[in-house]
């Protein structure tokens, strides 16, 4: 028994070493996900970012019509990469509202002229207040809101093709 016990520290060390090595070669997923998924959209009102489009408010969600909220910014590089995916969704008929973080109307207009404009409404969230209320931690992020005004899904970072398919499938199922 004593003999066996002698090996215990080495075994403990090996276990710890294995744990650390695992963390090194397979890092944990550090994506911050919203805790608001499966909860009703919080109450908010955002003024219009552009003169040509209305701002957005909680009252425009629900009412039987699922919609997307896209949190974006003109200064965000992945948002440019995401633009074609959003245009695909727009072409498929998915209504998309934008929440612009820390931005100016001029910069947003330039961004939309250059990358396409998938948005029906764009709210001006200068100080991230609504972004934080949604549990979003960065740009771009996309939230799918169902016909009852609940947040059904959150997509962190720029949308990929498979996520676009997932949105389309879920959106068609909800209509």
């Amino acid at each position, binding site marked *: 028994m004593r003999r066996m016990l002698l090996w215990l520290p080495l075994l403990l060390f090996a276990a710890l070493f294995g744990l650390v090595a695992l963390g090194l070669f397979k*890092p*944990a*997923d*550090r*994506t*911050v*996900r*919203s*805790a*608001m998924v499966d909860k009703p959209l919080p109450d908010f009102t955002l003024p219009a970012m552009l003169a040509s489009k209305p701002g957005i408010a909680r009252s425009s969600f629900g009412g039987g019509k699922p919609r997307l909220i896209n949190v974006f*910014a*003109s*200064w*965000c*590089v*992945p*948002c440019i*990469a995401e633009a*074609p*995916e959003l245009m695909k969704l727009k072409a498929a008929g998915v209504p998309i509202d934008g929440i612009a973080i*820390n*931005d*100016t109307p*001029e*910069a947003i207009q*330039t961004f939309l002229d250059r990358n396409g404009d998938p948005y029906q409404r764009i709210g001006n969230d200068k*100080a*991230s*207040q609504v*972004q*934080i*209320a*949604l*549990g979003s*931690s*960065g*740009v*771009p*992020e996309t939230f799918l809101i169902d016909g009852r005004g609940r947040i059904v899904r959150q997509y*962190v*970072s*720029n949308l*990929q*093709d498979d996520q676009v398919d997932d949105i389309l499938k879920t959106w068609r199922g909800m209509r």
Partner: protein
Amino acid sequence: MRPLPRFLRHAGLVPAPNERQASCVESKGIRLRRVGPRHKAGVTVVLGLILAAINPALAEKASLADTQLSDPAKEAQAKALMETIRCVECQGQAISDSNADIAGNMRSLIRERIKAGESPEQVRAWLIQRYGDYISYDPPLGGATWPLWAAPFVLLTIGIVIARSSFRRKR
């Protein structure tokens, strides 16, 4: 479309999982290229004072990210809370230490809510509702966290047992 390289994904505020340190730096790089106005805190304060002279209502709306509350007791409460809220961009830091935009916006939000009369624990609960326990550096005692709280006592007990047995052997 070809998938983007890892470093380009969501680099705006939340970094890709395995590029965390790099993209905190990188997001500063993006910030340099930003179109919107960026001021040093001092400029903001001066601008705020000018605005206050012109229109008090406008000054009220200014960001409280780097502006202390006029009530020292409330400022102390807000500061203490900020030190225990995690920044979601540079995830090892508290929002009081982080230069990330979203951390500044969270500081502003905390000051506004405390100024409006909410208690720090109410604000913490509101943030936990948004981001989960993850956002707080003060983990609550619960089903998943009790081993964390029990660990010091368990380790101390093991230590006492080892110490006792080894002292006994010496005698």
